[in-house]
């Protein structure tokens, strides 16, 4: 150990404050304590002890005294009771030497000390009982159902368990074949007998068949190539001609029709409304009614061709026209021309008969048929001409 100077120097280095403090002893010792200390110790060693524990300390510690454990609980219990009594006495009549305050801040449950000894005793007893007795103590009901097992086990399960496990272990190491033979020699025996037939060359052609199925959505070009190479070769030969620049005109023509146009005003001679309707119907179907008249007269549809040949040339020309040409032809006639034709050729159509067969209410409005060329056509098409035969 270093000299005291060195120690002081060390302290001064570590903490000048502590090094500078006076060393004052705050602990007090009774007067003459040290003077009498030796004598006090020797005297205490000489005096015999009054407790049984002191007796115990003098005996051989490797042996447990007889009846030790049987008496132990009682001994502890007595001690605990003594403790409880002295605590009560102190609480009732606190000793003047007790310097501390008599105000206890800690609370204790009601009856705690009264029941404490019994609780401790029970715990001691429980530690030493069997599980069965313990269960019986805790719950007689549960103790009562202890032996009742709800789970069933197959007959001789446990007896055969070890063999089953051993078999499985053995089977794991077998091939599939050997395993089958092991499990069922019968099934093993018929393993290669196949009852299902497969068409000849089935597998050889299978890949092609499948590929064809995949290609089922065959293109139209391939389809016609296969169905008819001749037709395939004709595909791009177009016999139809189209007027030059036609496709540039469609858009404008259609737009004109879809957008509302101002109403056309068509001059019409003043006639009685009846005659106006009759003549309008006549204009549209003049050739047709005339021919029907002839057909009815011959009474034989098979002679239709002959009947046509005998028609007026103008009617024959009308038959060869398409709808557009027919309309254009009619549009080119003036009202006076139409009226004079009707006057001359009125016998080609029975006007009174015609008027009686026409329902005036179903006729299109004059405004409609004057503006739209197709209105009368549509009216005639909607009414089956066959019905107008007389």
């Amino acid at each position, binding site marked *: 150990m270093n000299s005291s100077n060195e120690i002081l120097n060390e302290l001064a280095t570590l903490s000048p404050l502590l090094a500078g403090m006076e060393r004052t002893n705050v602990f007090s010792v009774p007067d003459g304590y040290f003077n009498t200390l030796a004598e006090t110790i020797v005297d205490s060693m000489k005096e015999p002890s009054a407790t049984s524990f002191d007796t115990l300390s003098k005996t051989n510690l490797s042996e447990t005294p007889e009846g030790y454990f049987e008496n132990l609980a009682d001994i502890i219990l007595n001690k605990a009771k003594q403790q409880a009594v002295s605590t009560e006495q102190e609480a009732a009549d606190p000793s003047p030497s007790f310097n501390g305050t008599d105000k206890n801040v800690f609370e204790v449950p009601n009856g705690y000390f009264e029941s404490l000894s019994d609780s401790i005793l029970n715990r001691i007893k429980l530690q030493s009982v069997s599980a069965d007795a313990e269960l019986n103590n805790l719950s007689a009901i549960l103790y009562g159902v202890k032996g009742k097992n709800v789970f069933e086990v197959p007959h001789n399960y446990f007896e055969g368990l070890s063999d089953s496990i051993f078999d499985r272990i053995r089977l794991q190491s077998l091939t599939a074949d050997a395993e089958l033979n092991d499990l069922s020699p019968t099934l093993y025996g018929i393993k290669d007998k196949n009852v299902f037939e497969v068409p000849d060359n089935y597998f050889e052609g299978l890949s092609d068949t499948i590929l064809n199925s995949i290609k089922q*959505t065959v*293109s*139209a*070009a391939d*389809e*016609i190539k296969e*169905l*008819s190479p*001749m*037709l395939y070769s*004709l*595909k791009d*030969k*177009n*016999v*139809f*001609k*189209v*007027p030059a620049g*036609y*496709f540039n005109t*469609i*858009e404008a*023509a*259609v*737009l004109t*029709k*879809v957008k509302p146009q101002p109403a056309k005003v068509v001059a019409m001679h003043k006639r009685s409304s009846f005659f106006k309707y009759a003549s309008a119907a006549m204009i549209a179907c003049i*050739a*047709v009614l005339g*021919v029907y008249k002839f057909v009815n007269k011959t009474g034989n*549809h098979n002679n*239709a*061709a002959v009947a*046509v040949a005998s028609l007026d040339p103008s009617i024959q020309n009308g*038959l060869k026209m*398409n*709808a*557009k*040409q027919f309309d254009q032809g009619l549009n080119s006639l003036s009202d006076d021309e139409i009226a004079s034709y009707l006057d001359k050729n009125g016998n080609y159509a029975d006007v009174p008969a015609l008027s009686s067969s026409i329902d005036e209410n179903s006729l299109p409005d004059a405004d409609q048929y004057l503006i739209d060329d197709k209105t009368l*056509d549509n009216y005639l*098409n909607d009414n089956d*001409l066959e019905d107008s035969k007389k």
Partner: protein
Amino acid sequence: MAAPHLDDKQLLFQFKDPSTKEKGYTGIIKKYQEKLYWHIRRMVVEHEDANDVLQNMFIKVWNGLENFREDSQLYTWLYRIATNESLTFLEQRKKRTAISLSDVENGLSNQLKADKNFDPNKIEWKLQLAMQQLPEKQRIVFNLRYYDEMPYEEMSRVLETSEGALKASYHHAVKKIEDFILNH
């Protein structure tokens, strides 16, 4: 070189907006007019008739496009209208003609023969005559598949017929036409 056509979605969008309705409409016409024209012309033969049907068809498009549900292709919808208009035209034409038509010859065959370029020895004209021997619906199936190369799936939506039936019809049509050409 003409500007490329807008896709159908864009055209429909333009049409549905009042400020661009006309622009969308003319875009649709320009995009589909030729295809639809030829589809109609092969049915009605004469240019003037095809023009009439085409224009009527586009008028119906103007009136009906707002209600187009877009659950099918625009192209399919247009073809359907064009087909129906062609058939309606042919029906009306039959009613207008004076004589009842015989089974063998019909007005369209006569019109073909009346064409100034008609040559009965040329195979392409024989093809047209052969097509007129087919019932109208079968003729349409043949046209759509042979000329327009339309997939059966799409055709079934245009004609509202099963794909199987269409395929059978087309195969029969090809056989009939081939036989006619070989025998005339």
